[in-house]
């Protein structure tokens, strides 16, 4: 990945592992790639509940929340983050997710307000490009 020009006002992205599994390989690789693309990444670690993720995102004034999960609980926990954001009047924060997610679930999660889902095999550049489209100034 080619290093980007330093954005004047870095976009802040909160990355979290929700759910109980400890597979953090993917989220850490994504964290490094986003850092190298000029984003400010706040990583909150393993086993975060939707409430913890949203509160941390609010305190950090993150514009984006990235969720990683490999245990199969995505249909419960991803929408729970979205509805927690609604509860806190913070629906301007964009939520994306990654993990082992079957196609049918991808469609359903998008309907429920998750902006995008990245499944295994997604090139890191796709994630960066998706963010660049969302935040052209970055």
């Amino acid at each position, binding site marked *: 990945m080619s*290093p*980007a020009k*330093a*954005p004047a*006002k*870095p976009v*802040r992205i909160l990355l979290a592992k929700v759910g109980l599994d400890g597979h953090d390989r993917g989220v850490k690789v994504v*964290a*490094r790639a*986003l*850092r*190298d*693309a*000029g*984003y*400010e*990444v*706040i*990583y*909150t*670690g393993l086993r*975060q509940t939707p*409430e*913890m993720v949203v*509160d*941390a995102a*609010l*305190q*950090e*004034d993150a514009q984006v929340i990235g969720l990683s999960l490999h245990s199969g609980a995505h249909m419960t926990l991803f929408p729970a983050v979205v509805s927690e954001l609604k509860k*806190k*009047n*913070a629906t301007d924060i964009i939520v994306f997710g990654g993990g082992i997610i079957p196609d049918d679930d991808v469609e359903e999660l998008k309907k429920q307000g998750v902006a995008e889902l990245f499944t295994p095999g997604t090139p890191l550049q796709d994630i960066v490009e998706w963010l660049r489209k969302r935040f052209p100034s970055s």
Partner: protein
Amino acid sequence: MRALARAITMVERRDAEVRELQQALRDRVQTPYVVGFTGAPGTGKSTLVDALVALLRKRERSVAVIATDPNSPFTGGAILGDRIRMQRHALDPKVFIRSMGARGHLGGLSLAAREAIRLLGAFGFDPVILETVGVGQSELEVAAVADTTVVVLTPNLGDGVQMIKAGILEIADIFVVNKADLEGHQRVATELRSMLSLAPKSQDKAWKQPIVATSATRQEGIEELWAAIESHRKHREAGGKAKAQAEQRLKDETAEVVAEIARQRAREALADGGVLAERLREDGTPYEVAEEILRLLRGPRELTP
């Protein structure tokens, strides 16, 4: 909470609206007590701060943490991971944790941190804990902002007390030897004590830098640490040092703000394709163009850092 978080982002980005915000909060400003934590990577600072937050919450204090991390200077990106150790406080509305990248600007993090501290004070958080990893100049910046600076060491330093980075002994108001459960803990404390007794390092001659043993993972020594911080606070206030330092810092900060504004205006003035950029190319030296920019600075424009 969101208003506060957004305001901190504004001061970090040095948005134009910052001045308005500062005016609006003018009457609410209650400067909180600032405790700085610094130390080499791996000394357990975040765990220690987490334990201190837990203690302060038991004492019903509202506490904020600013965790700073050096940015990747090339891309401006960063991975800020200090929250991991503190996430158990995530749902507590009386704890506010904010991660801050250094953003590579020349003023470092101190300007943004000072502004953020004022905002946190205005929202009722006191004390504010400012944590930084001890690389580059970051610990000096923390010491320049903190009322009490805590320097964290561990027994597994490897090279012993002699090798502690230059300048660190002088900025400490309190030393913590963390990981007191590890072997070699006594040795580090003893070496440090004898070194300090031979040649006291504190810049405040009337203050003897205490050494506190903690084990953050076992929550041991945290009460003692807070007691040491409190006694340093009382010492500063009793000696009138606090007031004098506050005045001096305000002057320093003002000078920094001026420098920051000047720097920004200079960059604008030197933008590619402009007259001054062209002149600079012809001159090959900076001084005459600099004079010209300083003349421009005296112009009527609003000062917006």
